[in-house]
């Protein structure tokens, strides 16, 4: 008997999923099975890739076979006047009064020794404020970097919501509307009043911001729309292993270059030099000209 041993190699077979992948510009990854590939393909329709900040996060995450996860849930103390949470660049900012720019606390997520480098550290710091409660969700690993939380805010924008066909008492899709962000386009809702008592003539409307309710004397005409921002008090923060920095951001510039004063930057920091060198290896031309 002759016995020989071999090491098998993966061999992919083109099937209907690959065909869908061709149509959607998303090829199968090496050794990727159908169920995982199917969900990446479906993700193309949900998390659209583009050249915007979010588009890049979603596109790169998907193409690398990684996942955008729900990482942390943050809820404010109900007694705060207008709480909000903003993740922007390297910072996580907690507001007690978003409208008047009153900040409870702000955490730097970039530096290892900044105290909020990991998700667990960030969650602990948020809970330590006493004004917000943060919970690490099932899909998240507390040891992952908190910078995996990409730019997002608990103040969300509704660019357009139809008002017509809902009668004269209109319940909006969201509650806790942000003052100063509301705009109504309508041929018969022309004057906003600030108490229900003033609803005494045609064309007037009153908005209950907390309840997300519009009261009018007449039903809005077809084509009437509202745009607004609202406060999500059950804020589920999403994260991606893909971290994108913006060199134009002041937060990040200070990580890349030594800061001489509030507006002037000097030579690259050790981290900045590393990143510049890496960029130079990708584009072997002169950088920054």
């Amino acid at each position: 008997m002759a016995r020989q041993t071999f090491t098998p190699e993966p061999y992919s077979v083109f099937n209907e999923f690959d065909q869908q992948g061709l149509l959607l510009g998303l090829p199968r990854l090496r050794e990727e099975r159908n169920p995982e590939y199917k969900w990446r393909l479906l993700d193309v329709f949900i998390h659209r890739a583009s050249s915007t900040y979010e588009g890049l996060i979603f596109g790169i995450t998907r193409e690398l076979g990684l996942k955008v996860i729900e990482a942390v849930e943050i809820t404010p103390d109900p007694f705060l006047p207008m709480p909000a949470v903003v993740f922007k660049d390297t910072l996580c900012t907690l507001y007690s009064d978003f409208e008047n720019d009153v900040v409870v606390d702000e955490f730097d997520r970039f530096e290892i020794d900044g105290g909020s480098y990991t998700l667990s550290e960030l969650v602990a710091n948020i809970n330590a404020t006493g004004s917000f409660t943060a919970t690490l969700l099932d899909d998240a690993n507390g040891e992952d970097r908190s910078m995996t939380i990409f730019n997002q805010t608990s103040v969300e924008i509704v660019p357009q919501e139809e008002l017509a066909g809902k009668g004269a008492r209109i319940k909006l899709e969201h509650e806790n509307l942000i003052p100063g962000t509301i705009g109504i386009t309508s041929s018969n809702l022309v004057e906003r009043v600030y108490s229900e008592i003033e609803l005494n003539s045609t064309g007037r409307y009153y908005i209950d911001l907390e309840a997300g309710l519009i009261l009018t004397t007449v039903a809005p005409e077809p084509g009437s729309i509202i745009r607004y921002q609202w406060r999500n008090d059950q804020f589920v923060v999403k994260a991606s292993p893909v971290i994108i920095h913006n060199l134009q951001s002041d937060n990040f510039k200070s990580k890349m270059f030594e800061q001489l004063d509030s507006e002037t930057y000097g030579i690259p920091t050790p981290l900045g030099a590393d990143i510049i060198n890496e960029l130079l290896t990708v584009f072997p031309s002169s950088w920054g000209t």
Partner: protein
Amino acid sequence: MKKSIVTQELVNIYPPNARVRADDQSVGYQFMNALAQPMEYMEKQLAKSRANAHLVTANLDEVDLTYRVLLPETFDFDEDDSDIAGPSAVPPTVSGYVNGEWHDVDIAEPNDIQHFWYDSVPNRTTLAETASGVDHDLFSFTTDGSTVASGLWEHHLGAGAIYVTAVGGVKYLEVIEDELRRAKVVLWGVNRQGQEDTETIIFPWPMRQRSIKEWKKITRIETLDMEDGVQIFLKSGDFTEEDYRDFWNIRYSPDRNKVDDFWGLGSLGEGSTLERIGYVSDEWQQYVIGFTDKEAKEAWELLDEWELPVSGVDLALQPFSDNVWVTTASGLIHCYDIESKMADSLDLIRDRTPGSHVQIDISPKWLLLGEDIDFVPWHARPIQEIVKYRLWYQTPGGVRYGLLDGSPVGFDTNFWVVGRQLKRTVADLQTITAVERGEYLLALEAVFDDESTHTEKVLVSVNYKIPRGTIDVSSFVTDPIIGIDFDADQAMWVQTADKYYKIALHTDIMLIDYTNKILYFKEPYEEVAVETSG
């Protein structure tokens, strides 16, 4: 030979009284059955292609990733030169090493992709995942007006299909003011992609339906145009139900109506039976007004590979296949085919008289071990009088008995009944108890006035099924199993009293490209050993 589901649809082109349409042992039916085989294959392939055109419904078991070994140019397969047509390559003995163990690898038989990938049955398992502290039984309520229920019901596996069952009620379709009202259940919630979503499921009559969309959680359920008192059940798994709708569901009744097929478990002594279930009526108009009783259309005793009875607790139909998996409480899970069979012993009825004036009235032509074969011999075309007749039968073991006055007698005795038979019923109801599995042959021989003899023969099957394969999960599922299901990713799960176990199925099988000297495997072995005699 397999009895194709499509054959009935095909023979329905003949008049209802034609034997080709009514008798599955007629030559015409056998002939049509041969034609129906590729038609059924084509119909299923078309259904699969239709499903594969959309990501949401596509078959996740399509061949995607194999592992291959490129044998060296110098490798020579053993040759079998016993065939006078020329020598042929002999598959080598192959074993695969994974997770510290060597596994013998079988060759696909026949050596093609269909049998390598699609028709092969897993032979071993590992535990992929365990879910505890969750329940697939999400919510139930009784309709009262246009019922709205709000809450938070999370899918027990994180995300997947939702099963909605409507029980009771008779007015699912109603015409009110010239408008057709259809009973609906509307689901709101968060779908598997994390988006807020909604899905409307229409109920033409009480039934269980699977959602098209996959859900993480349901936050609101509403019933519309549904009468009061209907019970609605919301579940995120399809475990321990009474019956399961056939995956392909392409059957037609002898009355040319499209009918629904279901599968369920019955009992026979200590063991279980697999039942093909259908509505009693084959007219959908009857279902709409509430006549939705079901009955077993055919049943098979379930046996294990040693032909011992299997006691199943639940079954699951494997999507895009003809496999049904029946689990026992002890952790043995058997894979059976869901095919009906043509009678095997058709040779035994070949000499029956074409257009015989006497017939054996028996329906259905199947039963289970221990049940009675009841039949009535009758004079179907009373053109001439019968002057004598005899009845006899042959057991599956090949032993023949005569029937005299309803009792079996030796076949070598004289059991002719002499005398003119003036009634259409030649003899009263005859009963034989089926004590062997297999096919019983019933025969009626009649001699007429003109001394001509007509012989009618019928085969009756004592049905049973032997598994195509069996897997054992008792090493990691130690509690009694109560249910089995395939999730939205077509992965197998078994349920115990307080946990759900995801079972990874492994198939040690290979496909050989003899020309290019390549071995293809389904499993990701770390190493493969190939043995030849050379």
